[in-house]
């Protein structure tokens, strides 16, 4: 993107993330204000929300970087000691995304196809994503995980777990 004489690169992912957060914050503030304008309701929520939106505006320019700045090597500032290093290799990212998607599928299908089937399918999928290819191992271990967790948690919690087969 060009503005004037300067070329900028837009970090769309970052932009989407903070805009999503700011959108959620704005909606939350709007929702809270629509409930009541009483101090008892807005005492903390309103200032914190406004602060968050201000931070959004402050961070926004960081999503646009000058091209020559991008080309320059990133300054080796102090790394966040709590950030866990996320691997950036291409196949690694595919694996992580695949695992995330299977987790999501399991979570939303628990009630639909039953806990037993959802857990079994997820366990098998997760093993395959992690590199297990031997069919016997896949079947046996997934089955074991399913049986142990279903019966184990049934004994632990009083909530019903809808299952299809077990």
């Amino acid at each position: 993107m060009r503005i004037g004489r300067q070329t900028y690169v837009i970090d769309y992912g970052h932009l989407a993330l903070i805009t999503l957060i700011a959108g959620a914050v704005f909606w939350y503030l709007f929702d809270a204000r629509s409930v009541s304008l009483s101090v008892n309701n807005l005492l903390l929520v309103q200032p914190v929300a406004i602060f968050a939106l201000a931070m959004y505006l402050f961070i926004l320019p960081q999503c646009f970087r000058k091209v020559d700045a991008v080309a320059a090597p990133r300054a080796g500032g102090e790394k966040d000691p709590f950030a866990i290093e996320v691997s950036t290799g291409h196949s690694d990212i595919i694996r992580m995304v695949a695992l995330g998607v299977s987790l999501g599928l399991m979570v939303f299908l628990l009630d639909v196809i039953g806990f037993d089937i959802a857990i079994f399918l997820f366990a098998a999928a997760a093993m395959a994503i992690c590199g297990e290819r031997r069919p016997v191992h896949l079947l046996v271990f997934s089955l074991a995980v399913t049986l142990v967790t279903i019966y184990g948690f049934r004994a632990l919690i009083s909530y019903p777990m809808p299952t299809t087969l077990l």
Partner: protein
Amino acid sequence: MIDITAFNDALGIMFTSVGSWGWIVPGLIVGLVFSAIPGISITMAMAIVLPMSLYMDFFSAIVFLTSVYTGAGFGGSVPAILMNIPGSPSSFATTFDGYAMSQKGEHNEALGYALFASTLCGIAGYLLLLLVIEPLADIVLRIGPVEMFAVAIWGMMLLGSLGSTYISRGLLAAAFGILLGTVGMNTAGFTRGTLGLPVLLDGIAPIPAMIGLLAASQLLSLATRDYIIEAEGSREVSLRKILKGCWGTMKYPGVLLRGSIIGIIIGAVPGVGSSIGNLIAYAETKRTAKDSATFGKGNPKGVIAAESAVASGEGGSMATMLALGIPGGGATAILIAAFMMHNIVPGPSFIETQKPMVYAIILNNIVQAIVLLAVGIGFIYVASNIMKVRTRYVLPAILVIATLGTYAVTGEAAGPITLFVFALLGYALNRYEYPVSAVVVGILLGRMLETEFLRSYQLSGGNPMYILERPAAMAIFAVMFASLAMTAWGKRKQNRAEAAEALAMERLRDEAAANAAHTTPSKG
């Protein structure tokens, strides 16, 4: 202070009911195992075994339940250290350095540090309890919203030690977390941000959200590795190293003491529990440490600080329960129920009329902490073997267990769905270098911040001078600011010293380079 005759009677109760001691080891194991399952909190572990205890006689039942409580207080740190999943909010601060240590292959030592910090401070907490149970109870009732608000702010100070690359991103993450923590019905009865979903009336379930945020950044990336730790040599499970960690704990009496004091006081406050004590203890230890830069990268002091506050908090929480009949947290609420089910109502009259029994319960807790030393070593020895299992087996099992654990929190799909949504959020935040921990702190403390701030406002009628009527709150703020100022001063001195040293080093290097090519500059 301690009542000697009652104490002697208490010893009598202890030794005449030796049969009930048999429940200590099973109780500890139940507590350790349940709380090591992500999502199963101390409260839930105790709720699960409560019906079982109905069939025992009173002292056995209490011994059994308090053993579960003691064991569960430590169990949560095992997944926190090995896999970066805090089983409950109280082991959140343990992940900071515990997991970093285990990534360096020092998981044996880290677990040893955690175990000893936990047991030693547990014992310290109960010993202190024995002495001051009655005065403590009166102080606890006097702690009002302003004091609690000061404590919550202190907890938020942890953010300062998260040390993100971008301060603005850390602040946005924290503000977002606080707002997430206030979703639902607030203490004045206003409902916000629920999207019309009844499950959100009580707010976003913090345990699934926390596991989701942290798991996404860690568990999903495990898919790219063959083992939890890459280096083959570091995967060993070594009793010698565990014991080395245990023993090493003794080298930090200052950290243990500070953690214990913070833990006891905060644990004693009804409704706070130990979920905030570990954050404050960690932040304070880091701030005052000379080597604060290594915190978060596997400094044992971080593990010790966090665990000591959790364990001693149990004693504080127990004091409130025994002396006032008020639960300090969910776990003590269940203990009260157990007391009532044996027709005993804890509270002021119970302490007056049954002091020997109160002492016997406290003494038994000390015994449990000592037994935990042995049982705990065995437990971590077994649990550490997870390091030797390939991720293709560990990962599916852990993810399934975490999902079911969050289901157990809410009793419906809302728990797992929260886990998943926050996993996505956590991944995105991590990707763009936002400190996920700041969001977690916000979620854990947001509700408390709002509630106590609001009550302070209501109580004072909006007059800020009200704080002058609350000396305790002023004291907390004073200690907090003094601690901040002192570290800022210390940091300045340290920075100056470092700058001078760097300058000297540079000069040395220049000289060395100028003199000869074969002299290598020594590393600072």
